């Protein structure tokens, strides 16, 4: 290689080092913030009786919207679980987005649906709605049958007939805990400026599900799923809590979030052009409220739980991660005027730059880092000692952050009752640095390439049935 080539390599390595330092510093900062916040939160729950808060009349009515596509395996179980929530005032709208399997037939049979028109309360453009149905066995349940238009389109179709002040979006493969809605709505009750609130997503793979309720929480047997359990703990307990403490949340998970209906409708509903509709909406809400000087808060509440199945095959996992990366980039590009813009406060000056430089460009930089490292090793240009030392630092740093997330989990929630599951999580915290992270980077890079090549598809999603036991 020429001298210029080596200089380029040095510059690339410098960028990679800087990225590594910045990324892990942010993770460390959010983890530390999360430690303090979660301890306070756990004690706060002890001071307040949730049921007591809701015992008097006055809780806002909520519409739970479930966008559904080809969910014949789980749709009845998920819907049954949603109708058993302890929240006093809510209804459920299943938005069947052009399923080609037996989803509609299963719902029809299980809930005795009858055609009842539903008057619109908003006019967000959507694909054609072919029918509206209400359940005769539980009038709180409505089903909208529509032509396929995508997840955002399905949510918007339900939003167009939503008549409650709040609405929640729950993924069709998620199981909400019975009191999850009460907990996630809490910020709306105690803080009138709340416009959105999100809960935590946990992996249901390997757990026992009985009558729509997760009864025995275990780590999955599948290794890929186990890594994702750890990753979700890190992402939610350390990441989302930390960003919420900094009042700079850019994401509420599309699997479980509650929003103020009027604000979302005024902001235009969910964007049909992006696969990252959850992040795009939250970023747009920040922008909309700041542009219009509307006082607002967005909360992440760590105790309400939605259980969701994660991919157990590399291909499905890869498609999911590529899609998430694409969605991230689409959302960030769409609102790029917020980047570094002091008019948007911490969102523009801290959160946005972080997501652009460290999350969106992250896979590119990591990819360059691995390539640069390989070149340095093969050309004997780099000192072996330095390479080993740097690799050790990278592995140990990543391990430490993951161990911290497991510690947070044990400190506050203690969902994994088996001590061996805890030990397994520690082992996974080490192992994920050798293989899992690299696979994730590869698929995220796939997402980056797909974004620049104009990819739009979701890809085929495999569904597995919840491991259900009938009640004794």
């Amino acid at each position, binding site marked *: 290689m020429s001298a210029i080539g080596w200089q380029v390599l040095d510059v690339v390595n410098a960028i990679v080092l800087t990225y590594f330092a910045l990324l892990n510093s942010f993770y460390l900062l959010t983890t530390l913030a999360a430690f303090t916040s979660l301890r306070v939160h756990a004690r706060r729950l002890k001071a307040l009786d949730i049921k007591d808060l809701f015992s008097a009349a006055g809780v806002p009515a909520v519409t739970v919207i479930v966008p559904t596509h080809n969910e014949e395996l789980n749709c009845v179980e998920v819907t049954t679980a949603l109708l058993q929530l302890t929240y006093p005032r809510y209804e459920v709208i299943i938005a069947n987005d052009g399923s080609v399997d037996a989803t509609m037939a299963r719902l029809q049979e299980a809930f005795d649906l009858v055609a009842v028109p539903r008057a619109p309360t908003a006019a967000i453009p959507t694909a054609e709605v072919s029918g509206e149905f209400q359940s005769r066995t539980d009038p709180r349940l409505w089903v909208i049958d529509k032509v396929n238009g995508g997840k955002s389109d399905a949510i918007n179709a339900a939003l167009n007939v939503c008549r409650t002040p709040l609405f929640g979006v729950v993924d069709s493969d998620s199981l909400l805990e019975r009191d999850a809605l009460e907990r996630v709505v809490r910020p709306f009750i105690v803080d009138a400026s709340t416009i959105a609130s999100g809960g935590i997503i946990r992996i249901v793979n390997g757990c026992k599900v009985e009558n729509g309720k997760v009864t025995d929480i275990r780590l999955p047997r599948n290794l890929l799923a186990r890594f994702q359990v750890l990753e979700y703990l890190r992402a939610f307990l350390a990441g989302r809590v930390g960003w919420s403490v900094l009042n700079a949340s850019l994401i509420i998970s599309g699997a479980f979030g509650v929003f103020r209906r009027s604000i979302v409708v005024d902001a235009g509903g969910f964007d049909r052009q992006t696969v990252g509709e959850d992040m795009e909406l939250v970023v747009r809400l920040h922008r909309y409220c700041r542009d219009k000087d509307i006082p607002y808060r967005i909360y992440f509440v760590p105790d309400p739980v939605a259980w969701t199945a994660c991919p157990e095959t590399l291909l499905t996992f890869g498609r999911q991660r590529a899609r998430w990366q694409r969605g991230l980039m689409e959302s960030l590009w769409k609102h790029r005027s917020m980047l570094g813009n002091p008019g948007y406060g911490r969102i523009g000056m801290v959160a946005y730059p972080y997501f652009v430089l460290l999350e969106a460009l992250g896979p590119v930089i990591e990819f360059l880092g691995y390539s640069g490292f390989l070149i340095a090793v093969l050309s004997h240009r780099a000192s072996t000692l*330095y390479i080993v030392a740097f690799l050790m630092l990278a592995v140990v740093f990543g391990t*430490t952050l993951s161990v911290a997330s497991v510690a947070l989990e044990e400190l506050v929630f203690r969902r994994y009752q088996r001590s061996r599951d805890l030990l397994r999580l520690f082992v996974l915290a080490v192992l994920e640095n050798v293989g899992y992270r690299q696979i994730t980077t590869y698929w995220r890079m796939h997402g980056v390439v797909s974004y620049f090549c104009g990819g739009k598809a979701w890809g085929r999603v495999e569904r597995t049935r919840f491991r259900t036991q009938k009640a004794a």
Partner: protein
Amino acid sequence: MITTAAAVQPNWMLFGVVLCTVLLFAAALAMAAYTMYLRLVNQRTAERWRDLERTWEPALAKILSGHYSPGTALNGVRRRDRLRFVDFLLRYATGLPGDDQAILVRTASGFLKDVAHSISYVDNEAYAHSIHALGTLGLETFKAEIVTALDHHSPLVNLVAARALLRSGRRDSIEAVLRRPALFKNWSASFAASMLAAAGPEAVPLLRQILGDTTRPDWLRTAVAEALIDRNDGAAADIAVEVLQEAKDSELVIATLRLLERTGNAGHTPVVRQRCDSPDFAIRANAVSTLAALGSSSDLHQLRRHFDDPSGWVAIRAAWAMKEQSGDEVLRNLATSHHPRANLALQVLSEQTS
């Protein structure tokens, strides 16, 4: 960077990297060890509490049934378990009928001094938890501490203290809260209303007074109106009419309309009809609902007019109102016509309610 630095100052950088690695490794090990230790401690503690509660539950049942006196509880609980015993009693505190509640409070009385002594004014959550315990189980004895908590800087502490005082139903306790209207400002109107409604019948005259007092802030009068709805206070209807005649704030007007809907009568409909033509669609919608509740079939004509309202929210209320006023025939005609809202009429006719 690695390659260039290696040629210039190899030792410092390498030293830094190794030092960071070692420190982080030590931190990871320490956290993992602490987590496992915490797991063991939590498991043992949970087992201990389970065993303790297995002995407390039958003892409490015997106290509540009168076989033991409440004072005997103090002898059976070790000093180090007293705060835990109070938490145990708190679990039952809101679910018991009146007499049992009084016995529970007497049972707790010997332990509450420990709670009061353990109050931490620095730790907001711990303070709120102590106030929650004192307010639920010992309001009479520790009222001064709870009123003091109303002025603490933590909104959580204020909330817990206010709830305890309001729930007591005693006039002096309620006045202590209402003298601090700023407490309510950040809460949603419905939450503030539920807090005020929990104050019980003793508070109702005070609430009526606030509702009719035009010098009070509109947001407070709105919360009060909502609370009076929860209390089903019939005597507030005449005050609501006076408020409707002068109020300009839309939230206050809406809350007052809803109050009339719950507590008013046919004599109150003239002022409601005036609000049916408000420029604010939310007021029109609520006025239509109130007219449905208070009016008669002679209002069908007006309700039919509101079915054509530019706002879909008003239209749906008008449709529901017509159904309530035995206007099925009108709705059927609309449903089978070419009216742009024919579907709405059909929905209201077909919809089942839970």
